[in-house]
């Protein structure tokens, strides 16, 4: 299929050859083209992801045996904080929407760009500013923050480490996220191609739409909360200090009002990606299109009302515990609707087991484990026992890395030929996936067992009975990192040496597969008129 397409299309450099006001690096960092901004995000995000991986690797290395192995306890506290801050705020929240959303949202809805291109560039600059402040927090003041990524009061308001600057970095990153959300919501409302009604829109834009609303509505709350932490540290205003009439639990409320929906900012676009990959590689119309679209909105809505499940042992009221527990169980329903629909799409499909589909299937498997273990914690009685244990770390990584991370890698392999006009080595990509999948499970599944046995999270040391599982987990991290290195080496090599592909190497049916690879400047010579749904493979097939 790819070879035939090559014959149809001469190799094109697409938007990479765009001549603007600037050249060289400036042509990128001052470009308002959504594709260039998407790639800027992708490069920045992947560099920071690598830093986060290094910190994670060091943490696991420290835990390979009981007692001190390679670092002091205070260093360990800083490293898990930095690992969390980098992975959450700098990789996984912006990851899919800012990189792939920017690149593909306008193309998938038949637009030339996002609604506010300059604001889009500002978002990236704010992101980079946030990164700079986060890095400054490491090397200035009295040592890197040691609070964990949650910055819980009262510790965050009292520790002597450089919390204020780190918190300010997160504040700026929040603005970047808000502007991206605003841009996407507006773009989807205003710039859909003629004939592209809401239910002719692909499911990735649907997921970005739901995500955009969460970014818009929830992020300002964490912004204000983080500013309050700074005010508390600088002026001792007392909002979270009981001695002055404040309430430390209020911090947890305000933090999780954003940070739980943030989990859905992370996972919803990944779900959108899976909804794109599965029909294309099963060559079959998606099952239950409307249910998947509506379930994105339901997840965004219900997911915004479950934050109290992080606080079951914090001292919040028992009545609130019960209400938040119930809502937590409810949010599983739209997630399950998606899983059932993806699996049903595969049924009787003409499945070609390409690498993106391997990642998509891994997503379903790992996200299901992550999601169901989340339900276990939603039960009040169980939560008391496993709260703040390694079980939570396992659950979180299954959802965030097994879900969003594998979704990100799936998107990378699915859209790589479109973004760069070249195909990666498929055999190498499958081997890399295998290492990733095996390494991932070996790294994180022992955490469920450790947590169940009573191993607390964020602990530097542990009892001898936990050693075997910790050792297994650390070995898993080595396998996982080998997979990551292989995957990125393969993709980076393919940027120059990969086989050239045509417009539609997978036989997709959404709009991005109708334009050249890589896409031309402004995407479409003429804005297309849409007269059918996004996943109609028979009539709309390129074959």
């Amino acid at each position, binding site marked *: 299929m790819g070879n035939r397409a090559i014959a149809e299309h001469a190799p094109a450099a697409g938007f990479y050859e765009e001549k603007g006001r600037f050249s060289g690096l400036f042509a990128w960092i001052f470009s308002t083209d959504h594709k260039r901004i998407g790639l800027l995000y992708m490069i920045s995000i992947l560099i920071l992801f690598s830093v986060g991986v290094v910190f994670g690797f060091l943490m696991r290395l420290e835990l390979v045996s009981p007692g001190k192995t390679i670092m002091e306890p205070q260093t360990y506290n800083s490293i898990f904080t930095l690992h969390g801050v980098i992975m959450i705020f700098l990789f996984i929240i912006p990851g899919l929407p800012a990189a792939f959303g920017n690149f593909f949202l306008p193309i998938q809805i038949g637009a030339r760009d996002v609604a506010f291109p300059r604001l889009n560039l500002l978002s990236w600059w704010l992101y980079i500013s946030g990164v700079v402040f986060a890095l400054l927090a490491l090397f200035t003041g009295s040592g890197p923050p040691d609070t964990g990524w949650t910055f819980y009061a009262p510790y965050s308001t009292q520790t002597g480490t450089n919390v204020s600057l780190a918190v300010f970095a997160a504040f700026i990153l929040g603005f970047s996220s808000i502007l991206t959300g605003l841009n996407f919501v507006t773009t989807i*409302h*205003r*710039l*859909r191609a003629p004939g592209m009604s809401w239910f002719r829109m692909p499911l990735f834009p649907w997921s970005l739409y739901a995500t955009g609303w969460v970014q*818009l*509505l929830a992020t300002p*709350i964490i912004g204000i909360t983080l500013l309050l932490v700074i005010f508390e540290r600088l002026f001792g205003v007392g909002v979270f200090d009981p001695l002055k009439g404040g*309430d430390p*639990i*209020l911090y947890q*409320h*305000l933090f999780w*009002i954003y940070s739980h929906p943030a989990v859905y900012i992370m996972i919803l676009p990944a779900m959108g990606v899976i909804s794109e990959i599965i029909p294309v590689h099963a060559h079959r119309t998606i099952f239950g299109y409307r249910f998947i679209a509506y379930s994105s909105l339901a997840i965004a809505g219900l997911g*915004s*009302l479950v934050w*109290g499940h992080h606080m079951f042992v914090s*001292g*919040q*009221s*028992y*009545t*609130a515990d019960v*209400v938040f527990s119930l809502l937590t169980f409810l949010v599983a329903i739209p997630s399950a609707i998606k899983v059932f629909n993806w699996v049903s799409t595969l049924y009787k499909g003409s499945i070609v087991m390409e690498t993106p589909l391997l990642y998509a299937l891994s997503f379903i498997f790992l996200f299901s484990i992550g999601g169901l273990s989340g339900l276990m914690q939603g039960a009040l009685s169980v939560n008391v026992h496993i709260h703040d244990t390694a079980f939570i770390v396992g659950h979180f990584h299954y959802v965030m890395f097994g879900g969003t991370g594998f979704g990100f890698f799936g998107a990378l392999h699915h859209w790589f030929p479109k973004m760069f006009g070249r195909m990666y080595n498929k055999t190498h990509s499958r081997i890399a996936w295998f290492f990733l999948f095996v390494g991932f499970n070996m790294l994180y599944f022992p955490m469920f067992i450790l947590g169940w046995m009573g191993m607390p999270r964020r602990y530097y040391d542990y009892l001898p009975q936990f050693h075997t599982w910790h050792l297994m987990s650390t070995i898993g991290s080595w396998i996982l990192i080998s997979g990551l290195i292989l995957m990125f080496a393969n993709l980076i090599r393919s940027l120059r040496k990969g086989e050239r592909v045509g417009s539609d190497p997978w036989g997709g049916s959404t709009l991005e597969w109708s334009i050249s690879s890589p896409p031309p400047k402004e995407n479409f010579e003429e804005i297309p008129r849409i007269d059918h749904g996004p996943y109609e493979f028979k009539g709309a097939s390129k074959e």
Partner: protein
Amino acid sequence: MEDESPKHGLVGYGTYFLTWFALLVLTALTVTVAGMKLGSLSILTAIVIACVKSSVVLFFFMHLKYEAPVFKIMVLVVILVLAIFIGFTFFDVSFR
């Protein structure tokens, strides 16, 4: 997408003056209620008055009154979400 630009003329000074006056009255009301010792209702009252005030600003000073329904719905959704967030947080405090 259809053109949804506002179709209104200039708003008179009278409207702006009345809006300003209403905001002053509502501010006075907030201050008065704060001194009435209504217990847990005092917070609710303050929030309701603040909502009315912000709605007045949105509708008249920011011209939401003259915009297409989609914008009104969006603002309503935002206010509703904020009310739910605040409501759930206070709900916890009142049951502790």
